[in-house]
Structure formats: structure tokens, C-alpha cells
């Protein structure tokens, strides 16, 4: 590798910083949880998850964490995805394929607008709280 200049070092830092920040959870307020039970995976949840990660990356959204979880119980509308973020109700989306995933990122997360045709529910009350 050739020796780098000050400018190049700064650019490299910005670029790599974005990569490493993805590992961090702290301070990130938006959470996308993809149901990855057997039925979810069978219905294509892996593609959905990938689409989320890629779209978020493409749009450069920094405070979004994508997590996976087990079966959410809506086996009839898999893949299911829960989105939690400030100023928006907790929402569970059903039948989220890769295209819908991209739409959710653009509409729900960026423009704070529900993707109505895929809204299934709000989550069941957590009795443990």
C-alpha cells in the first residue's frame, strides 16, 4: 500500500468508522426485529433480513439496529417484522418480503409513515413487565 496523506487518512477514518459503528448498539433508537423461527426462515425471512441491512446501509441510516428473534407467533403471515422507534407506535408487519422490507425502511423509518397494507398488529402486552 502506498503511503497515505493526511486527507486520505481522514477519509479512511470516516469510511471505516461507519463500518465499525454498525457493531454498536448504544444510542441507537430504532430497532428492527425480524422473526427467524423455522417458519419465518422457510417463508424467506433471511432475504427479508438481508434487504433490511442492505437498504439501511444504502440510505446511510446510522441509528438503526437490525436484530433477529425467534418465532413471533404469526405463522400465517411470515415473515414477520417488528419495528420500534421514537414517535411511532410499535408495529408488527406481516408478509414482509425483500421489497416490503425496503418499503418499510423508506416509509416507516425514514418518513415515519406506516406501510398500512402490511401492518398486522401491535405486540401483545408483555406480562412480565
Amino acid at each position: 500500500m502506498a503511503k497515505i496523506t493526511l486527507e486520505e487518512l481522514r477519509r479512511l477514518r470516516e469510511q471505516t468508522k461507519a463500518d465499525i459503528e454498525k457493531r454498536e448498539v448504544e444510542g441507537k433508537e430504532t430497532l428492527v426485529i425480524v422473526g427467524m423461527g423455522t417458519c419465518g426462515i422457510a417463508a424467506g425471512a433471511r432475504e427479508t433480513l438481508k434487504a433490511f441491512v442492505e437498504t439501511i446501509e444504502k440510505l446511510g441510516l446510522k441509528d438503526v439496529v437490525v436484530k433477529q428473534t425467534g418465532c413471533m407467533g404469526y405463522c400465517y403471515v411470515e415473515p414477520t417484522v417488528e419495528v420500534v422507534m421514537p414517535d411511532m407506535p410499535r408495529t408488527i408487519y406481516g408478509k414482509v418480503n425483500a421489497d416490503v422490507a425496503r418499503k418499510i425502511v423508506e416509509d416507516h423509518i425514514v418518513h415515519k409513515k406506516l406501510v398500512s397494507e402490511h401492518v398486522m398488529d401491535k405486540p401483545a402486552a408483555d406480562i412480565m413487565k
Partner: protein
Amino acid sequence: MAYRSFVLICSGTGCESNKSGVIFDRMAKQITEKGLQSEIQLVKTGCFGLCERGPIVKVLPDETFYVDVKPEDADKIVEEHLLKGRPVKNLVYQYEESQKNIKIENIPFYQKQFRIVLRNCGVIDPENINEYIARDGYKALEKALFEMTPDDIIEELKISGLRGRGGAGFPTWRKWVFTKDVQSDVKYVVCNADEGDPGAYMDRSTIEGDPHSIIEAMTICGYTVGAHQGYVYIRAEYPLAIRRLEMAIRQAREMGLLGKDILGSGFDFDIEIRLGAGAFVCGEETALLASIEGNRGMPRPRPPFPAISGLWGKPTVINNVETWASIPVILLKGGKWFAQIGTETSKGTKVFALTGKVNNSGLIEVPMGTTLREVIFDIGGGIKNGKKFKAVQSGGPSGGVIPAEYLDTPIDYENLQKLGSIMGSGGLIVMDEDDCMIDIAKFYLEFTVDESCGKCSPCRIGGKQMYGILDRITKGKGELADIDKLKQIGRAMQKASLCGLGQTAPNPVLSTLRYFEHEYRQHILEKKCAAGSCKELVFYTINPQKCIGCGLCAMKCPVNCISGEKRKPHTIDQSKCIKCGNCYTVCKFGAVIKG
């Protein structure tokens, strides 16, 4: 390519020797087999600190903290967690009291820690310079070269109040000023990575987990004092740290962060590694410099101090690994920020290697002024097997013991010294009721006697004599006059020895005498070792009321000195007993008495 999950696997020496390398390879293979390689990034990191429970695997952004991971668990983590999103519950760290799987941010081990030196340990891949750069790496160097004058840098260090972390606590900025102000054609910068205290591994872990922080700091120092060559003196027993450091130096050179005209600033600096053969005395700065020069590692009288006349007689700044690792942060966040942390006289944080009879052995970093109690009971999780805390040894063979009544002492340079110990490089060894203080003192003294270079007589002869006395006492052959003799020789060694090794070698003896003189007296007068660790003073007998004559002890006795009829009380032949303690351990009826 966008990763959705990140798996951080500890590859410090502790976890590596527990096969974290195998776990890494196995996970990598599984991930490829499952076609996840474009979604999941595997990262080898430095030490997470909770070495007691290693190997440690952390999954982000899920924040799952796996402990005690075995190679065969690798498949399960990939299959269940990474593929299906179900954390492998039985491997997730559980905090004993609640028995619940808990989130990383709530792990009590980390609650009171504050990581400056270890900021990148367990966070980045130490073998990848880009990850260091991403975490503001080489930004302090940038700032130093282009925005600050050498005087600005020294001023910032002065405000920070940073003191040498190698043990003595000399203000770092002063050393730098001395060297900077001396006129000389050549000057040197040296990193002391000759960590030799038994049970201490702070420096090793720092280099293993974040080697670039040392390179960056040494380069900044070179710019400040006008040096163009640096040396890292590290012991050959640290192969992993050496390999990572070599790799880091190579990467920095390739990028032009070391070498000629760094970042176009016109400033040249390079670093070479010098391996030490593992002599403890080479951690002493003048002996270390002698060793770099290719001579036998022996100290010389100071002054002149190395800052004025060091390596090959040239002005040399020599700082310890931990001191170096703090410096980039001080320049970036400011001396004021650093000075807010800690106590009046001791600023910033200190890394400790917490070992001994404590539940969470490991590598920790706490603000100066944290109490010993917080370190041992909150972070360390208390004493193993519910035993009683007896004392903690700080500063390794140069330090002393601190008993229970001083547990609430805030840790800083002055406080530890007042208690007859020293900060040292940061080993903390916790001892419980089963540890005999004389035996401990003897252990450390044996170490320093062995490591004494022999140049000056107080250390060479004094140490040997003290050791002889301790040995007699532990064998029940001590006399009351020995106590005064120990104190006398010890004080003479402190005053008359040439270097730090001899001056501090009596500390373990003097401090145990200070707090546990009654134990010495018990050994001498009653010929008894209450902790039961001095073999010559321990006798095993069988209580005939409790013995049911099962014969298990007789079977396990390696010298066949236990006899008796079946179902009748047995007896131990004291003349043949070698005091191995087997009978005591195996008896299910508590019939064997140790005393």
C-alpha cells in the same frame, strides 16, 4: 457488502490457550457452509477482561455475551443463533445471584469499570489497522503533528496529571520536558513492556488487544522531544503480543504512519522491537536500557536519569505500556477531561490484573480512587467458595499485602504507599483464610532473590538472608529474635540497594510483619500455621469418635502410613506421614483433623 451481525471472539493469550482460535476457525467454517459469510463478520479481538469465564464470544448487535465457550459449541452458536436467531441460552453469561441471562451492559463485572487504556480491547480486531483508525486511531498523532507544538503537547500532559503507570508514578510530562530540553543530536523513545510480576498481564493484554495505541503514542513523543527512533522492549515470553506488535508496526510503515515524512509533516520516526529474555530486573529502566544496548541487564546508579542520559548515553524517554496507551486519549479528549477522573494526586484510570482467590479473575480498568472493596467484591464478585477475605497483595514482588481493615481505601499511588504497599504495575492477588502470610512473603522473596542481578550487596546478600530466616520460620525452627532481624535487614535493603528491585524486595515481608506479626509469632512460639499451608507445621490426625473405619484414607495414602482394622478407627503414623493432605480431602466423615 453489508454485515448484519458481528461475532467478536476474544483472542488474548488467556482465551487463546483455551482454544478460542479453534472456535474461530470452526465458526468460520460453519458460517461458510451455511452461506452466511456475506452477512456475518467474524472478528478476533483483544481481551474482554472476564478471563475467569473465557473463552468469550460476543455477538452484536444482539449484545449476547457467551462465556466458557468450547470448540464444539461453535456449531451450535452458528446454527441456532446466527442462522435462526435463537441465542444459545446455556452459554449466555449468568450472574450468580439472579441466575438469569443478562445483558452485557448490566454485567456487574463491567459496572464500575472505566476503560481508557483498554478502550479498544475486545472491541476491534488488533490485527487490522483500519479498525484502529475507525476508532479515532492516529487522530491524536494528526493533531499533534499539524495543530500542536511540542510545548502544547507537554502542557496538555501536565494538565492531565498523568503519572507513570510502571509503578513509581513519576509525572510523565516531566520526563518528556527533561528530554526535550536537552541538546542532543540523537534522542530515543522507549516503551517498557517487560512486564514481569507474577500474575500480572496488563501490558501484555494491552499490546495484544490494541498495539497501534502504543505506536501512535511513541510517535507523538518522538515529535515532542525531538527523537526519531523508538524501541519497544518486550519479553520473549509474550509471543502473541510480539506478533501483533510486529504486524502493527508493519502496517503503520506501509501506510506511512511510521517512517519518513509521516503524513507529509516532514517528521520521521520509526520503531523497532527488542526482545528481553525474561529477567525481572530488566523492567528497571537502566537495566532495560543496558539490555537494549546488548549488555547484561544490570541497573546503574541514577542520576543521571535516562531522560538526560539514557540509551547509548543519549536522552531517552522511557514509559510503560499503560502510560503510552493513555496518551492518544489525553490529546484527543484534552488533559482537563483526563484530570476529572481519579483523585487529587492520581489522575485517570488504572488497569489491574485481578487474580487469586476471587470469583471473577480478569483484566479490569477502574478510575483511580476506586476502593479495594469495590474492586474485589463488586467487580471481582467476592471470594471463591464463600471463604473469608484475608488480604490483597498489590504491586507484585515489590508490593505488600493490605488486610481487610483497609478494604475501603481508595486506590491511588499515595494511599497504597502509606499502607506499606505500592501501586506497582497493577497486579492484584486476592488471598483468603487458607493463605499463610509467611508463606506468601517467602514466595515473593524467593522470586526476587532468584531475579536479583547480584550487582549490589544489600539486595544480593540481604534478600538471601531474609529468605533463610523465613524458611526457618515456616519449618518451625524460627526464634523470636528473627522478627527484629527481618525488619532490620529489610530496612537496610530499602535504603541501600541500587535499584528498585532491591529497594522494594523486602516489602512483602515488612508489610506482612506490619499487619500479621501475630502469625509470625504463632509460627515461632506455638510452631503452628493457622492457615495450614506450612507443611512442616501441619499434622494430620484421626478423630476416633468420628472414624467409621471405611479405609478410604488408607487406600489413598501414597506412603501407606494409615492403618487400622476394618470398621474400627484408623491411625496415622506421624513418622512416615508426608503431609500430602489426601486423607483430609477424601474423608467423608470429617474424621481427619488438620492442625
